[in-house]
């Protein structure tokens, strides 16, 4: 369905629609991200983040990584974002108009971020990425079953380590956030 060949000259109408969709999603993602970092209202920032994460999930779909896309939706949008919104609500400082959004280093940070972004973009765009020859079919996407198998065979150790890390995180979070007993 998707053929990833940047230099492919034959662009069909379907391709064109897909390309338009891609650009649209990409723009939506970046806009969501921009909202996330700029919104004065923290709740709105969280919604922007949701948009950005959703966009990324769609981008995963474009890359034929369906499982990852689903995971992205489930974990980020479903779990982390919910958590963040809870946090925002608990801290009860959703928006304070008197407070500036940014700290004092905003200007230099902007310059830095622009430099990084432009630099990276420049590198990405100008690097001569290896392009498979038109005659060769592009490599097949990784099937879900292979992913699952490799997760519990080759990458079993990191997988298990990750689970232990998560367990630790769970315990740690509970310990940290627990309400300390009053000494009295």
């Amino acid at each position, binding site marked *: *369905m*998707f*053929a*990833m060949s*940047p230099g492919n000259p034959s662009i069909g109408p*379907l*391709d064109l629609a*897909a*390309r338009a*969709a891609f650009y649209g999603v*990409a723009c939506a993602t*970046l806009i969501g*991200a*921009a909202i*996330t*970092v700029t919104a004065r209202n923290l709740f709105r920032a969280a919604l922007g*983040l949701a948009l950005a*994460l959703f966009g990324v999930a769609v*981008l*995963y779909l*474009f*890359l034929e990584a369906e499982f*990852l896309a689903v*995971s992205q939706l489930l974990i980020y949008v479903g779990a*982390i974002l919910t958590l*963040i919104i*809870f*946090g925002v609500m608990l*801290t009860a400082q959703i928006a304070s108009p008197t407070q500036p*959004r*940014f*700290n*004092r*280093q905003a200007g230099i*940070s*902007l310059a*830095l*971020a*622009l430099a*990084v*972004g*432009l630099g990276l973009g420049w590198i*990405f*765009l100008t690097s001569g*990425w290896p392009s498979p020859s038109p005659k060769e079919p*592009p490599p*097949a*996407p*990784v099937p879900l079953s292979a*992913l699952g198998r490799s*997760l519990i065979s080759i990458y079993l150790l990191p997988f298990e380590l*990750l689970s232990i*890390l*998560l367990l630790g*995180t769970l315990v*740690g*979070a*509970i310990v*940290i956030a627990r*309400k300390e007993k009053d000494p009295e």
Partner: protein
Amino acid sequence: MIVPLPQLLAVSAGLFAIGLFGALTRKNAIGILMSIELILNSANLNLVAFNRIWGEPSGLGQVMALFVIGTAAGGAVVGLALILTIFRHRQTISADEIKLLKG
């Protein structure tokens, strides 16, 4: 449909830059956390994209992306727990009012 790799990478670069800017500038700790999530997502995007283009059969890139998501979740949990605790103690989550690292 062709997803052109450079353009995809450019999106990830943009995400990264925006995330970086947010992490550097947001006063609110939760805002910083969200910015970091953006950065992580940009990295994930790269991983998946490269995995796709080189067709690594075991799906290394996707696996790594999954791990990143997992650790990000963990990070978010701990980070939020910290933020809540700090807030409980200081009634603020403004990062420039928290100077625990000041020697």
